[in-house]
């Protein structure tokens, strides 16, 4: 039985989509309906459904951000009323999406496609690329990559060479910079950092994480085939979300 989660900030829209899906796909099990992006992300991590129907515009985290944070095997289907640029990107990357208002015939085609073939590594890579393009902050195309970071630690500020940074991780309003000699807080968002850092050395591996490849020690795959990174000089492992797993396939 296929298990699905639906996320939409307007619950009746989610319920309507569920009813339409069940009519076409009677043995689909809708395990949860989430009202915002934060709830959706938490429930996807907890329940690991096979499918997640994510409305793009949701409070908390938008649908794309939720997709970027999925670590497990959940396959994403985006739901939107109209987002011209997102739709172009989805078409281009051959990603699954559903349009609101729901048209039965169109939904039937999407369902047939979802039932026919599991999404492979290729579609993960396509999704990562589409998400990266859609979420890039405009006006931030740095010509020379960022080399130093000014970071706060209590009352003092530090001047950090990016080569000494193991990884960046977003934490609510701040970004935590984990360096070889301690942790620092900066206000720059992950998206802004990504646009400024050297893409050959720094990889985004999760919605909230950018790692410095120079410090990469190795990877581990768990029973549920989730991928984790080990960094030199850091004890805890970092999860890699589904959309970025393909980056490590060739290594």
């Amino acid at each position, binding site marked *: 039985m296929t298990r699905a989660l639906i996320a939409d*900030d*307007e619950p*009746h*829209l989610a*319920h*309507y989509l569920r*009813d339409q899906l069940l009519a076409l796909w009677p043995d689909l099990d809708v395990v949860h309906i989430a009202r*915002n992006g*934060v709830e959706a992300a938490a429930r996807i991590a907890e329940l690991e459904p096979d499918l997640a129907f994510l409305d*793009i*515009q949701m*409070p*908390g985290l*938008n649908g*794309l*951000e939720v997709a970027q944070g999925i670590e497990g095997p959940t396959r994403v289907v985006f739901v939107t*009323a*109209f*987002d*011209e*640029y*997102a739709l172009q990107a989805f078409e281009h990357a051959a990603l699954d999406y559903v*349009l*609101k*208002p*729901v048209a039965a015939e169109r939904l039937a085609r999407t369902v047939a496609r979802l039932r026919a073939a599991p999404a492979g590594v290729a579609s993960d890579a396509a999704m990562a690329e589409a998400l990266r393009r*859609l*979420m890039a*902050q*405009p006006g931030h195309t740095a010509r020379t990559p960022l080399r130093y970071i000014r970071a706060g630690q209590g009352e003092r500020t530090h001047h950090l060479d990016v080569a000494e940074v193991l990884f960046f991780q977003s934490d609510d309003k701040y970004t935590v910079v984990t360096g070889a000699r301690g942790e620092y807080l900066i206000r720059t*968002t992950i*998206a*802004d950092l990504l646009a400024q850092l050297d893409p050959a050395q720094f990889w985004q591996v999760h919605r909230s994480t950018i790692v410095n490849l120079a410090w990469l020690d190795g990877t581990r795959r768990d029973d549920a085939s989730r991928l984790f990174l080990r960094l030199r000089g850091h004890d805890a492992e970092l999860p890699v979300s589904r959309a970025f797993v393909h980056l490590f396939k060739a290594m």
Partner: protein
Amino acid sequence: MQTKTTLRLAWRSLWELRRTHSVPTGVRLLAASLLAVALALGLMSTVAVFGHVDRPNWWMASLLPNIGICLCIVHTLLGTLRLAERLLPPALVERMSDVRDIRAGMALSALALFGIILGMTIGFTIVPILVGFNVWGMFASLPAALTKFAVFLLFVMAANWAWWRSRLREQQLRQDALDARLRLLQGQIEPHLLFNTLANVQSLMDYDPPRAKRMLETFSAYLRAGMTQMRETDSTLGAELEMTRTYLALYQIRMEERLQFRIEAGEAALAARMPALMLQPLVENAIHYGLEPKLDGGSVLVSAQVEDGRLRVRVADDGMGLAAPSRRLRPGAGMAVANLRARLQTQFGTGASLSLEAADPGTRAVLDLPYRAGAGAVAGAGS
């Protein structure tokens, strides 16, 4: 081709009062000198045809002094304009460049006339010394010279007038084009809103028919108010607020308890004239960037006051705030404010402003316009 374009740009920049010019000084000096030579030749031809000159060798004897004098006049005139650009306060220079203002035209003409008279004085003093030709004597004694002077002044005035008219026309055309483009941009009901509303009605018909009905009614009211506003360029605050109210009501049906809103405006403010579709983009921003992405939502307060002959409209939300990273996918984020500022600039010059301030929490947009009373108060816009 390139030279031609540069010269044409130089020609235009000669007559524009602006602090900085894009065309190099050398090219502009060349254009001015060419103008002086053309002017001298034109004047002499006029006198030759109409002036009844009976002295022999008149043409050859007068050519050089005439060119010299015209060079003096043109360069002094342009020098005066350039000096004015530098010495006058920038705000005044800005006002004098406004071709739609007749006072600006008169001030500029006076400045030009002063430059011409000064240039003639300098020319008539220097040139005789240089070429050993007594122009003053000739000027005083010959009716031809007097005719020349009169023709010259007439020519300058005619040229000035023609130039003024052409610039006015050009500016008018540019303004029309801009207006048309903006109307086109504004004329689009946001597709996302349209499809989302339809999706809402589709699902509510099964689960909550009364709410589906309310949604359709509110959406119709919004469309009607919007369509009316889109045909207008000059509207009233009352009509603007009516459109805003239906828009917020529509979002309230969707966001339920996540959105509260209030609209406050007195009678005088409601009747105030203002450009159409100025308020709507500010309220859309408050919803899209402020409240929609926020988990708990929040409130929007739209208020308008008339103070000291100004109409001030405030749109305040307690949402994500200006510092929050933009999570919207729709391009045109931030374009709305730039568009509004461009419209204010073309219509009011420096007489109106739109400011965005960080409130704690949220964002406050303040629209500051000259107050113009409308024909009558528009009823039914309060809420």
